[in-house]
């Protein structure tokens, strides 16, 4: 009887360790690559059970990397966890992809309730920084840069409401990225996430 109870407890322990490992950001990223505060799965290696479990847990029904790249940030550029206790600013340029978007998620990995129903921005909805086309120093810019603001409180533009969440995450989705992106996953220009 004691042995049976011991076996059951060990089964629970083994499962608990596995779930905890998947939940713990620092322990579950051994197959991911970093680009500043962003991490990305270079390959959706389907034979890796741990990776498949992680994807099912935090990104069920994700597409394979040939179709979409998912960059995720749960820390700011200083390595501190993203939390709605703080305000953040992201300054970025247009990612090289057919369609791209930034979406913010709460501690529970779901969209954050807010009166504007703003959960993210994409190439169509984001407000770009104005570019003075008459200024020759700016004429080389194909498209403007943009600033995103993560805050509990309303911001003038590109406001991602952070609600009341101990842990935030931001996902940058790049659908049909340019071939150069795949070659430079860890070095393509991605926004810094600056606490303000």
């Amino acid at each position, binding site marked *: 009887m004691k042995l049976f109870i011991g076996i059951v407890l060990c089964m*629970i322990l083994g499962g608990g360790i596995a779930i905890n490992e998947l939940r713990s950001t620092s322990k579950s990223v051994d197959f991911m690559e970093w680009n500043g505060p962003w991490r990305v799965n270079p390959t959706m290696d389907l034979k890796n059970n741990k990776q498949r479990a992680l994807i099912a847990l935090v990104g069920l029904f994700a597409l394979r990397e040939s179709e979409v790249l998912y960059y995720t940030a749960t820390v700011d550029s200083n390595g501190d966890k993203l939390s709605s206790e703080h305000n953040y600013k992201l300054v970025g340029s247009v990612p090289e992809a057919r369609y791209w978007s930034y979406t913010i998620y709460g501690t529970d990995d779901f969209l954050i309730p807010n009166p504007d129903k703003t959960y993210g921005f994409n190439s169509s909805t984001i407000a770009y920084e104005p570019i003075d086309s008459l200024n020759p120093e700016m004429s080389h810019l194909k498209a403007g840069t943009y600033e995103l603001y993560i805050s509990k409180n309303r911001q003038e533009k590109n406001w991602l409401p952070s609600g009341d969440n101990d842990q935030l995450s931001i996902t940058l989705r790049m659908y049909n990225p340019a071939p150069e992106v795949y070659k430079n996953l860890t070095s393509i220009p991605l926004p810094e996430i600056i606490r303000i």
Partner: protein
Amino acid sequence: MNKKLFIFSILVLVTYASYKATFYLLPNFIYHRFYTKSLEVPDREENKFFMLLSPDENARAVVKPNPDFSYGVAFYNLEQGALRISGSIPDSTYWSIAFYSPNTINYFVKNDQEFDSNTFEIILDDENCQQSTLPSPTKKGFILVRYLCKNQSPSEIEIASKHLNSLQIEAYSCIE
């Protein structure tokens, strides 16, 4: 002493096996929970598409939804034979159809730019149907059609709804 060591070894082995098994079984468990909850909703059944338009904070079925997309969703079942999946494809926005097995592996995806026309037809089968255009690794699985509504405007969502409404799953008779 030897007996204690033997029991300790057994317990360590069980712990390790459970640890590994959790990674292997978790995707199936999560999928099954999603399958059960999804089909609890009236009028939803296997081999029939349903729509999820513009997810917001109330969309709690799948973690990390993309609010820019409207979705056509279906659970397929090949136990009665092959299936013909068809529908229309938009010409001015991102659209894709993806197939998943119950262990959540995305074994097939094709987007609007990879189809030659504005309609599609896929013959799905897990056996030896000669007309099959897509072999399924399992009897059951999941289809997810993504339709991009970049601005989330009512007119955009209405058009998305029309396209997603065109999605059909029918029984297909394979010719030997």
